[in-house]
């Protein structure tokens, strides 16, 4: 079927507002990842979901960031009280399992601009 789908593709928000970014992984993929791509910062790991296991939240930069994955499929990344430094491309990815031998497939990203 289709690849990893993310929405919105672009979001401009005012500083202090909350935003939600959505990710639809490839059907059947149990592992889901969120990364942040900033200019000069490369790809920064945020959070990882694998099946029913507790998510690895070790990359979330602050408690303003949270993510959930409902029903083992769709995931939502929420940023509360956005700051200008949150401006970046937020990439979602999925793989068949969490095994590092599986290829990780990326979405096209959600470009967030905080003004």
């Amino acid at each position, binding site marked *: 079927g289709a*690849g*990893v789908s993310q929405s919105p593709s672009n979001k401009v928000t005012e500083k202090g507002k909350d935003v939600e970014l959505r990710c639809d992984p490839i059907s059947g993929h149990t*592992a889901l*990842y969120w*990364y942040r791509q900033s200019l*000069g*910062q*490369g*790809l*920064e*790991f945020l959070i*990882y979901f*694998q099946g029913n296991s507790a998510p*690895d939240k070790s*990359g979330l930069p602050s408690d303003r960031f949270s993510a959930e994955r409902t029903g083992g499929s769709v995931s939502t990344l929420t940023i509360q009280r956005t700051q200008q430094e949150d401006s970046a491309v937020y*990439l979602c*990815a999925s793989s068949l399992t*969490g*095994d*590092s*031998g599986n*290829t*990780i*497939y*990326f*979405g*096209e*990203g959600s470009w967030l601009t905080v003004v």
Partner: protein
Amino acid sequence: AQRVTQPEKLLSVFKGAPVELKCNYSYSGSPELFWYVQYSRQRLQLLLRHISRESIKGFTADLNKGETSFHLKKPFAQEEDSAMYYCALSANTDKLIFGTGTRLQVFP
């Protein structure tokens, strides 16, 4: 801590010239290393992984544990190779640690 270093932000070469994109990692165990590529207006995608020992689009990468490096090489660059290249490490965990990326520009 696991870390991936790509020292070059930008690498510019002429078509037909050899290319080497550098990647160094820090990890005390046995890592799995990958190269991902992002062409203009396309999504990030896997280029190659060290365990496959394959050549993709003429690119190869050899894991050198002594030097903790996984440099990406191509003997003759093509214009269509222009893209952003990311080296990534998986260290017995389920997530990839990426470097900051190198932009390759191949001039005609």
